[in-house]
């Protein structure tokens, strides 16, 4: 290759690189805008007066800043009640899932008992079963047990997921046995080996399960729709859907309520971003 052609080649390569950078920047800007613009609109509409929100949704900039919409949400519907219900159910589900799944996962990963592999296959098999298959028998069971319209129905159906046991078992299997044998020498029983050796080493997997459970339960809609009837037992998602279902929708209030409903997770996300993202990344752990 002549020196000239070589120079042209380098030149071409440089131009191609600049163009590809510009294209990438444009794509990213477009993607970011597609996410931020709808959110900006939501904030704008939430601050409009009721009459303005009724007439015009085209302009996201409100004529006046009606922060009182956020208070109205709490006055027009028992939004605080919904909030507390969702917080309570989420907390119970997260605690219940973490405790029972990690215990079961320890048995599957480390202890020998008859029928272990078959039982684990049953757990694994149900991962593929859509939740709607179990929803109807669950409804019938809770109806007999008098748990319809009780937060317990949402808590119980939220705790015993095969996913949690599966995820933690895979993680526990990766912890070297030698670490536990050190515990045996120290005279640890199964309980102390589990709580003092396995659990402290499993923080990433436990964080993942916590975040996945929190997101699922906080955002749950179908089960709440099926199991909850009375207004005082409603969760945030139910309350939002019902606010939206009104005949003449007050979009300013709907948007304010929507923002309020996602706010706690949003705040948690901004402060614990690393845990959220790493947790979700690990949720795709391979079997």
């Amino acid at each position, binding site marked *: 290759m002549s020196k000239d052609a070589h120079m042209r080649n380098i030149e071409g390569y440089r131009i191609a690189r600049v163009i590809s950078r510009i294209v990438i920047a444009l794509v990213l800007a477009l993607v970011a805008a597609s996410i931020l613009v709808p959110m900006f609109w939501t904030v704008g509409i939430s601050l409009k007066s009721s009459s303005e929100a009724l007439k015009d949704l085209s302009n996201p900039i409100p004529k006046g800043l009606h922060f009182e919409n956020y208070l109205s949400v709490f006055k027009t519907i028992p939004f605080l009640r919904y909030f507390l219900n969702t917080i309570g159910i989420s907390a119970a589900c997260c605690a219940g899932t973490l405790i029972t799944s990690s215990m079961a996962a320890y048995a599957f990963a480390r202890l020998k008992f008859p029928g272990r592999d078959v039982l684990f296959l049953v757990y694994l098999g149900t991962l593929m079963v859509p939740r709607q298959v179990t929803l109807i028998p669950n409804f019938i069971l809770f109806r007999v047990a008098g748990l319809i319209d009780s937060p317990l129905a949402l808590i119980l159906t939220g705790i015993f997921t095969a996913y949690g*046991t599966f995820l933690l078992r895979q993680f526990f299997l990766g912890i070297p046995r030698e670490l536990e044998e050190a515990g045996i020498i120290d005279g640890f029983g199964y309980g102390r080996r589990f709580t003092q050796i396995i659990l402290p080493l499993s923080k990433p997997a436990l964080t993942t399960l916590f975040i996945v459970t929190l997101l699922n339960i906080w955002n749950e809609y179908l089960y709440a729709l099926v199991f909850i009837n009375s207004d005082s037992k409603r969760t945030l998602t139910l309350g939002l859907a019902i606010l939206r279902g009104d005949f003449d929708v007050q979009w300013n209030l709907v948007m304010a309520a929507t923002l309020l409903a996602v706010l706690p997770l949003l705040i948690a996300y901004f402060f614990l971003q690393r845990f959220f993202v790493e947790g979700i*990344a690990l949720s795709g752990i391979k079997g």
Partner: protein
Amino acid sequence: MKRSRSLAQKREVAAAFVFLAPNLIGFLALTAIPVLASFVLSFFDWKLLAPPHFIGLANFKELFSDPLFWKSTVNTAFFVFVKVPLTVIIALVLAIILNRKMLGRDLFRTILFLPVICSSVSVALIWQPLFDQSSGLLNQILHFFGSKGLPWLTSTFWAMPSVIGVAIWKEVGYVMVIFIAGLQGISKTYYEAARVDGANAFQEFFKITLPLISPTTFFVLVTSIIGAFQVFDLTSVLTQGGPGNATNTLVMYIFQSAFRNFRMGYASAMAMALFLLILALTVVQNQSSKRWVQE
């Protein structure tokens, strides 16, 4: 062979039982047995208030001649087979872009992940005003380019694509994060070797990235398809299944049959049909994976 187990073994079994029991009891009562119960229920006619009676395959026969069941199945399949591939492709492209060191990388990742933490219900509510035919943002953009605008949620043709668009918007960040984790597991030496051999960016993508990320792609495809078949929240808030059942999905129809019409047996039969569909697709993917997934 020893007849009785040693004390240590007995202890281990007892410990296993204690560790397992809390989860196992709940799992059996609320997941494993209900799966069987749902199967049994699908052979019964049960209006909830009257006692159930066995009707054999009548529910399934009715399903096959129920136009709304077929409509919901076709709608759901359309949703799955458009949404999942698009989400995976967009997420993979974004993951590759955001896996490199660049200015503002963390900010972009943060922004892309925002919709993931929102519930489908709130995402539907956020988008609803933007779809408004007269004053919504989307049609204003179209007006700007001289178009009359589209009946996003009110036409039988556009309603499902609109829902799919929102579904992709919500999930791309999630799939991207999983892909980034997968990309970080690929050893840099492959790319260094390729560069020495003079490979260009396209060759790098098709010969290195795509094959080595294939286990992640497989995982994402399987779980996304299972999840997408269960679409309910978005369609029920955004379009209530309308217009004219154009966005009615299988899970919405199961919900209506079971909890609005109280036809427990019929709804169970439909849930079984949904399960078989998912099972068949998962088996097919698992079989075909031997050809394209690298171990």
